């Protein structure tokens, strides 16, 4: 008996969980930096002088 299917299943679980652990913080960092970029753009837009027209 080799039980190879069980081995493959266990290694697949390991790979999936590790991939999740790798991916999640990268996405969080990207999201935070994007939010900061958008915040900066909004602030810059708000600071622009508004020309009033009649």
């Amino acid at each position, binding site marked *: 008996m080799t*039980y190879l299917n069980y081995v493959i299943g266990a290694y697949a679980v390991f790979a999936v969980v590790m991939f999740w652990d790798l991916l999640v913080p990268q996405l*969080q960092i990207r999201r935070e930096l994007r939010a*900061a970029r958008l915040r900066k753009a909004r602030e810059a837009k708000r600071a622009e002088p508004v020309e009033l027209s009649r």
Partner: protein
Amino acid sequence: MNPVLLWFHQLGSPPIFDRFAARWAPWCYAVAFVLMGIGLWQAFQVPADYQQGDSFRIFYIHVPSAMMSMLVFGVMAVYAAIALIWRIKLCEILAMACAPVGAAFTLITLVTGSIWGKPMWGTWWDWDPRLTTELILLFLYLGVTGLYHAIDDRRAAARAAGLLAIVGVALLPVIKYSVVWWNSLHQGQTISLFGDSKIDPSMQLPFWLMFVAVQFWFAGSLLSRARADNLRREAGKDWVAKLAVRP
């Protein structure tokens, strides 16, 4: 001031920590990938066990993950204690960043153990002391993460969750000695960091490679998660805005 001590103090500054984490996390992951690659390749080169067949190869991911599940909890509790005593914000962040990584290792331990248990014990699960205490450890990790995200004030949340982590440390010796204290289904200690291991030396190399690899993985993941939380807490500060617009 001692330069090492000075560097350590400076690391408490959010922008300096961000630079440190951004620089070193990829290196930690890279070392982990290389060691894991060699370790897993080696894991399939060693001969199959004469009784367990190939199923013993699950050992190479199960045992390092099990060791990490306890080690990460200990590290989390130490950071939480430092954060509670000296009110160091970075230690709060690091303590809370440990929880999801530890939960991931605990989940791997439980699932791979269960997969190994089916052909070897004839069951996916048994309410054995080692399995049950490891499951409680997973719930503790989830409890720490849940508590941290349930309170709006990040500092108060980190203090409450940190307290749970410190109390939870009492579970670690119970997990470690559960196979000694109770006559259970789970086998006793196979491999020892400081003493003699019961596994044949020809089967040990992949284990040690995987063991070192998961340490580096933990370091990389901890730095990345702490960096994300640090950025979230510092949102609106000038240094984050400058970092965000940098090409």
